[in-house]
């Protein structure tokens, strides 16, 4: 019996849009093993983002269950979900979503501080070193390039040593070269610090970096649900 860090069972998410019902997810069984780098690939509207939001506890499924790090997310309150995200999930978004009022360093340690925990400064320093951001640690996000911002976001996602890192089109706003760099870094860093990554993308090339590719189409997993098929 293998233990999964992320596991969904029969996950369904329906939206009502006007008179139509949109099936964003329609019975998804998705599993991720620890320290794995999984790319979920699909067209826009295929439900891949919804899957990610479910895994991160941002959204509640219409039906089915999500388990992350051995814990079921159903029945958690809003506050509990916030604490769950703070401790178990690191998010990386397309538009970086750094807090503009805080410096890079403060952004990175924010999830840790939000939990009232002691910041492991040497670890953060190491992280910055690997991400090549040491010099920018006191800069504000507004003064950084897209690639640098995304690197800061990666650092933020990893700094609290979460169980999984959920990346939603992290290179969507970057040009190809820096997009590639950022993803390479993500891969390198995750490897180095033993992190699990679920990456959402529509770009085959980007997905190639992953250990495993899962294709999602019309709310269903089309192939790649099994491991190393």
């Amino acid at each position, binding site marked *: 019996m293998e233990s999964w860090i992320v596991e969904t069972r029969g996950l369904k998410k329906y939206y009502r849009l*006007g008179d139509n019902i949109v099936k964003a997810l329609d019975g998804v069984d998705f599993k991720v093993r620890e320290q794995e780098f999984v790319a979920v690939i699909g067209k826009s509207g295929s439900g891949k983002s919804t899957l990610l939001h479910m895994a*991160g506890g*941002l959204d509640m499924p219409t039906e089915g269950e999500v388990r992350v790090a051995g814990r079921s997310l159903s029945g958690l309150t809003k506050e509990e979900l916030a604490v769950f995200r703070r*401790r178990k999930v690191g*998010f990386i978004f397309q*538009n970086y979503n750094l*807090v*503009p009022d805080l410096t890079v360093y403060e952004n990175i340690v924010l999830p840790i501080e*939000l939990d009232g925990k002691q910041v492991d400064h040497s670890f953060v320093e190491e992280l910055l070193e690997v991400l090549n951001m040491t010099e920018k640690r006191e800069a504000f996000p507004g003064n950084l390039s897209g690639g640098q911002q995304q690197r800061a976001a990666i650092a933020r996602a990893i700094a609290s040593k979460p169980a999984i890192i959920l990346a939603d089109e992290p290179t969507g706003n970057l040009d190809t070269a820096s997009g590639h760099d950022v993803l390479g870094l993500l891969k390198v860093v995750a490897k180095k610090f033993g992190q699990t990554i679920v990456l959402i993308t529509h770009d085959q090339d980007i997905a190639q970096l992953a250990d495993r590719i899962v294709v999602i189409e019309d709310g269903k997993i089309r192939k790649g649900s099994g491991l190393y098929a």
Partner: protein
Amino acid sequence: MLRNNNMQAVSRMAVRSLKNNRRRSFTMITAVLLSVFMLFSVMTVGVTYFKMQRLQNIRMSGGDFDAIMYGAAKEQQKTCKENPDVCRMGISAMSGYIAETEFDSTPNVVLMWADDVWWNEIMAPARERLEGRYPVEENEIMVTEYALEKCGFKGLKTGDEFTAVYGAGEKKKEMTFRICGIWDGYGDRSVFFVSEEFYRQTGFSPADISSGRLCVKFRQRIIPQKMQDEFIESMELGKQQKVLFTMDSAFSVQILTGIAGLVLITCLCAYLLIYNIMYLSVAGNIRYYGLLQTIGMSGRQIGHLVWRQMLLIGGVGTAGGLMLGSVVSFGVVPSVVKALGIRMGRGGEITVAFHPLILLLTVLIAGITVYIAGRKPVKIAVMCSPMEALGYRPAVRADKRRRESMAGRGRSVSPAGRIWRMAKEQIAKDRKKAGIVILSLAAGMSVFLCMATLLCSQAAREYNPSYRDFDMVIKNDTVQKEESEERLQIFDQELLKKLNGIDGIAEIAPLVYTEIAVPWEPGFADQWMREFYEMWMTIPYEDDLAEYKESPENFGSSLVGIGREDFEALNEMSPQPVDEEDFLSGKTCLLFRNGLDLKNSDVEGKSVTCTEYGNRENARTFEIAGLVDENAYTALLGYPPTIIVSRQAVEEFAEEPVIFKAGIRYEKQRLSIWERILQTGGYQPSDAGKETEDAILSVMEDSPFHRDYSYESRIRMMEEAKKAQGNMMEAGIGAALILALIGVMNYINTFVGNIQNRRVEIAVLESIGMTGRQVKKMLLLEGFLYAAGAWGVTAVLGTAVTYMIYQSMNYMDADFMIPLLPVLGMMALSAAVCVSVPAAAYRKIEKEGIVEYITMPC
């Protein structure tokens, strides 16, 4: 469950957020600062006013009491004591007077007895110095240095004795008093306090109206009229008994109401502004809060983040406001309090009352305001779901009603009409917010309107020196002298010549008089004197009748001569005009009514005869044409009537009638109210005529009789009025400006936020063919509608409040008058602000282009 202590980082973020949104923080801090400043100042004025009023009251009445009753019977004392509203009650009683000492025959010092409560509690606050103790022995006495001096015993000390004759009722008695104490302070100081024993042997009783004084201090600070009435009723007053309240409680209530009103308006404005900014800031940053939730910020922490910001803003603003308030209060409050009618006498500087309670109350009110304003925005921030904030959930909450109305009704309307309707709908869409903005704009405008109206009404008040609209009236003070020989002709030929030579004088109208006697006759003279005694005298007419018949010279009066213009002016005021020819020719006369209960019909057609004073031979009889009430035409009031005839008639009757008064009119055109307001701010006298007046005064000063004249002049009255008003108006306009500033800030924030929210909508409108000009027009119209709404509220509420305030302050009998020019100016200004904000906002949108707004995520 022990909560995680994880707020430190959140607090730091709050500070950072404030620092990075400088403009927003600054606006909010300014709002709090201004409001706190207003609250603090207004309340300081209030407290200072009441404190000073109490002090003034204590000093004027020589004791701390609210009501005084003349004569108090035993039962009444009991009733009063049992009244639950009464805090304390003291009794004093007049026990005679010092009739004579070896040094002074008319010391005019009263002997009083006071009970314990009066002496120890009621009077204590009015005393500044006290040595010795209250008299116990019959011959002991408590004195003031002032009273001693009046008796000629200057320099006596405690323990010294003096002998004086005192009177009590009918009897007079010589007695040696021993001084057992000296006090000094406020109130009546020509008083010796005596012991109870002394008082008892004089035979006076507290029940006597002329002796007993019952002073009552109520528990409440402000005694409403109803309570006063109830108290008076409960005392079951005897016919001659009277209860007087020392304080004008109605005015106090008005001032309290005014303060409460200003506090309320200020709070409302501040609330609106803070709410508005916070709401916009949170609603505009909903993504930010969603983002914070995705990285694991809990709702509690987000609440803390927003509250923390509010706390910081509130704290900084309050501290600043209090500091500014304290600084300004020292300068402004005394003059405002003075303007509200507090005059401190000797040694009476108005000291600003800083009460810790004001500080506390200001902080509390500001805190509550900020709290209430922050609740909704915080709730929004806490409740926002991260998904919504990330802009993923499809928006299905389209406003169907509005869309239908736009599509359905818009068909047959002209483009201009449609724009007009769209602007209207925009405001109607968020009624609450529009109402808030309109109210807050109206608040500033209303206070401005109120101030401008009061100012204008004051300025419009005609400062008329006594009569006929003269610019200056000079009086001959010798006329008031007791001895006939001392009444001199100070306006001699030389002086008149000099006066006539002064440039800028249009008219000098002297009034002359001569002393006369009115001999008794059974007709009019008897009728008049009977009326006169009934009205004014305490003794019956019959007591003096014989003397009057015998020597009418003892009952002197005056014959006054007036010019044609004076007569015309009188005639104009009179309900029954008098034939001019008969009057000028000296056939008829007018009589000064002197407050008697006589009607024109009682005297008309009757005749009155007068004789020259000291010369019974020279007599003249006039037919009475009517009665007048204008007392400007009286010189020396005697028991018999003052007879007003033409000047010519007086000159024929007496050799050299004395000029007792001269009215002077300047050539210079007086300024209209508006010129006055524009030139001098309204309440300052203009310079017009100032030179002429100075010239007249210098002529008067040069004359040999420079001690014997007094004058009234428009310029002087206006100067005095200005002095009395102090900086009241500046303070008022300042308050209006602060409120207006808050209102405008509110408006700007709302509108800019509104446009920001509607960028997509506007972009869509433009993309479907609405021209930029049309969009701009729509926005301008919206701005204008805000202004119009604010005008409407001001016109209704503002005017009503203004009228009420005006009514309550109108002890100077000024006409109610809405100042057209400032109001128009205010309207123009507000319209300009209301229209320029959308224009500026639109220009910004235009610059940034519209396409971005369509493509902008969420």
